[in-house]
């Protein structure tokens, strides 16, 4: 069977589901950030697949993928900086222990 758009979209959906499960269940803050990166990569795969099959010459999907990569890089930098400062304040990176705002 020829590899088509649906193959890539299905792979993207499965990767997104794996990342979502990890982001919902992990305790380690850096592991949560890694799972969010998996989800962003899944979205990028589907963007590029749409660009390849639905608008091959227009390339709008690839432009969107570039902006997603930019935002993901910014998110990784700020997210890891927040994890570092939480670790410095509480000597732990477990998200359950970061409950300072809890009433």
């Amino acid at each position, binding site marked *: 069977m020829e590899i088509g758009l649906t193959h890539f979209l299905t792979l993207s959906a499965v990767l997104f589901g794996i990342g979502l499960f990890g982001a919902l269940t992990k305790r*380690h803050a850096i592991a949560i950030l890694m799972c969010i990166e998996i989800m962003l990569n899944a979205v990028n795969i589907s963007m590029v697949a749409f660009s390849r099959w639905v608008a091959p010459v227009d390339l709008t999907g690839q432009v969107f993928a570039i902006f997603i990569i930019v935002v993901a890089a910014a998110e990784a930098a700020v997210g890891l900086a927040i994890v570092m400062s939480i670790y410095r304040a509480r000597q732990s990176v477990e998200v359950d222990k970061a409950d300072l705002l809890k009433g």
Partner: protein
Amino acid sequence: MGVTIAFWLLAIMCIISALAVVLGRNIFRAALLLALLFFSVAGLYIILNADFLAAVQVLIYVGAVAILVLLAIMLTRDVTAGGALNKFRLPALIFSLLLVMALVYSVLSTPWQISPQAPLETTTAALGEKLFGEGGFILPVEVAAVLLLASALGAIVLVKEKDGKWKSG
């Protein structure tokens, strides 16, 4: 034929490394497998005729984000404590499975409008035209520059000590 084999190999690599990242016990190993996942996604981009994006993926994700994650893991000492899952594992598993099933169902049942045009051989010049040319995405490019500057400054401010000194040892 070659494309089919390459797709299945890369897809299996992607899914296995993603599962290992989510289910693995050692967070350091998970970060290395995340780099492998990024690499196989770059391979998928090459299959999809997106050569520029494949290079960007290797440079930014494998070269920068994976290294950033590894450094953050090394600086926070809980290296092996990445395996623990919280008490929502069963509802989260059910929700994720339902979401994947709904997404796959809608992907398979939608009649996609496949374009008959052949994809571009090299995309770099066309992407540059699209981003910076007339009627393109020049305003989002400027906004992205501001976003990157703000996030770099924000990261520096967040990791700095409160009294303005850098942490030593």
